[in-house]
């Protein structure tokens, strides 16, 4: 789960990282009050979980509380890459002598956490990684030793730091690592970590991605849920234990297994269609869960056909069929549905669905082709109906 900048900075502050003073605000008046309390030049920053806030006008400097209020008024409610800004962070503006990047990531190939630093801070680090990977220095962290000072020192020298500031760098690296471990993050970064003309570090922009798998043991982070912007359908799916991702197309997908769900989307695309969603009902899904999933898909008005692809292993085809029946009898869907059931109890499943108004297919390729064709027919007939 991505955290908002202000949530990440609050966590970092607890680990002694030098975040600028500041508070989050939901209204222009609140923003003004924060600026008054801070009593300095501030920066007002849109709190949205996408990059490119600056370019979109979501980050503004304000010399006075009045200016902060105006900046907040301009930013709150704006849409950045489709996301509405509901909160701003009002924080002390830092003077910048230089900017560096410092981040902890999971290095999958090394099977370790890795601390990365670059003298090029404040820019897209992935862009730096592509353009000039030599500008990024990295150390892998042994899980049983944790980040050691000599490793952080190697990074400091690797990005050209010298003198007393290296001690501060070690402290920042240590705090970042402890935060990373103790909240079970999969990413924790400061970008930029600003070096001020006075030779102090300020963690100007902060980011944390939490490992969803570790939520069970981090009760202190429970209140951070609900703060995340997501598609309402994704939020609902999550509540039901379904893995759902909204996409741009019109063919709804209901599949068991993540890889098979992706493959189903891919095959739809291969035959010229566009998937409306990724949906994995999970292993061993019962009728209720399947019904819930189908309801969710059908609640999407863009959907003009549904592909149901089930490979029964632990999941039983008869259960799936019952779930489909339950949902369709309740909703009476206005769109065609193609089902392909293979594996455990497939005959029973097919029998249950025999009387329902469903198109069946023997293979994934066939099912996808049919779904694409039906979606096209429906779209064109819709176009004819509403000229």
């Amino acid at each position, binding site marked *: 789960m991505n955290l908002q900048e202000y949530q990440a900075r609050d966590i970092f502050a607890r680990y002694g990282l030098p975040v600028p003073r500041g508070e989050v605000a939901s209204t222009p008046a609140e923003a003004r009050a924060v600026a008054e309390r801070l009593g300095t030049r501030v920066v007002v920053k849109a709190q949205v979980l996408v990059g490119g806030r600056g370019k979109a006008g979501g980050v503004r400097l304000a010399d006075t509380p009045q200016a902060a209020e105006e900046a907040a008024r301009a930013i709150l409610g704006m849409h950045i890459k489709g996301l509405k800004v509901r909160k701003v962070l009002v924080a002390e503006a830092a003077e910048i002598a230089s900017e560096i990047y410092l981040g902890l990531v*999971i290095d*999958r*190939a090394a*099977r*370790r*956490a890795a601390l990365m630093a670059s003298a090029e801070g404040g820019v897209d*680090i*992935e862009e730096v*990684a*592509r353009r000039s990977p030599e500008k990024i220095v990295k150390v892998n962290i*042994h*899980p*049983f030793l944790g980040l050691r000072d000599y490793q952080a020192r190697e990074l400091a020298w690797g990005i050209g730091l010298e003198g007393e500031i290296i001690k501060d760098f070690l402290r920042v690296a240590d705090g970042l690592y402890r935060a990373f*471990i103790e909240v*079970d993050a*999969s990413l924790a970064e400061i970008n930029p970590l600003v070096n001020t003309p006075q030779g102090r570090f300020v963690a100007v922009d902060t980011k944390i991605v939490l*490992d*969803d*798998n*570790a939520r*069970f*043991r981090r009760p202190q982070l429970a209140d951070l849920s609900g703060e995340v912007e997501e598609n309402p359908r994704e939020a609902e799916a999550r509540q039901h234990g379904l*893995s759902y*991702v909204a*996409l741009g197309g019109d063919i709804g997908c209901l*599949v*068991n*297994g*993540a*890889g*098979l*769900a*992706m*493959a189903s*989307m*891919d*095959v*739809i*695309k*291969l035959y010229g269609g566009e*998937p409306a969603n*990724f949906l*994995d009902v999970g*292993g061993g899904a019962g009728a209720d869960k399947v019904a819930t999933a189908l309801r969710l898909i059908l609640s999407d008005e863009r959907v003009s056909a549904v592909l149901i692809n089930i*490979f*029964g*292993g*632990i*999941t039983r085809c008869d259960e799936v069929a019952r779930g489909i029946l339950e949902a369709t009898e309740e909703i009476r869907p206005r769109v065609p549905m193609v089902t392909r059931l*293979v*594996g*455990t109890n497939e005959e029973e499943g097919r029998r249950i669905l025999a009387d329902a108004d469903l198109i069946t297919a023997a*293979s*994934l*390729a066939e099912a*996808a082709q049919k779904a694409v064709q039906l979606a096209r027919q429906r779209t064109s007939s819709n176009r004819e109906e509403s000229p």
Partner: protein
Amino acid sequence: MSILIDADSRVLVQGITGREGAFHTRQMLDYRTRVVAGVTPGRGGESVEGVPVFDTVRQAVAATGAHVSVIYVPAPFAPDALYEAADAGVGLIVCITEGIPILDMIRVRAYLDQRGVRLIGPNCPGLISPGRSKVGIIPGNICAPGPVGLVSRSGTLTYEVVYELTRVGIGQSTVVGIGGDPILGSDFIDILKLFEADPETRAVVLIGEIGGNDEERAAEFIAAQVSKPVVAFVAGRSAPAGKRMGHAGAIISGGSGTAAEKIAALERAGVPVARHPAEVAEWVGEST
């Protein structure tokens, strides 16, 4: 021959008294896997499906000579189960459990490497050597013995491909689901090495998906060290960036880990990449 498991493999089930553990113990026994012991702390002395249950892995190993363990315990307890199996001298651990925190798996992997223990998974369907033994949850009825080794990051997608292979008459030496998590016990290369060395395996199917660069590294390895024909499939050509697609490891982050990159890398290594699962079977048929 097959890789990793065969008809002589003596299998231990950790979490055998749980719903999943008990169900799949039955399934494995039905497939004639030699499930010799189960472990659930505090349930020693009971039995599940006729399999004796022990309190600790050490006791189970001492009493039954089990050397393969399959883990069905819930995520919060899975790391301990893994450490316990490693400490008790089990040589191969298959971890079915989904949802283990990444930082736990980093620690587990470091410890297991140090002890020289091989791990398959976590968050995987396990493995099957058709007609000999299955350890995990892969449905036995869709498999057939034969010359094709299969290694996959996926679960049901693997079944889909196996189903197509079997349907066109191509059997499998061993099918290995390595799992969908970012930190895995065994990666493509680990399994490819085994298939390359296995005289019975004559061709290999590799099923990848978005996220990480395991497929890219596998492609380099295949180009350099695999003499047998390999056919691949990569799921997620149509997946968007920044979204986790079900599996914890299936995410395109920072523009890397895309299906396009993986497919390009595999094709550069001379590995044909099928466009849909059934095509895998067709192409394997042509290559063998």
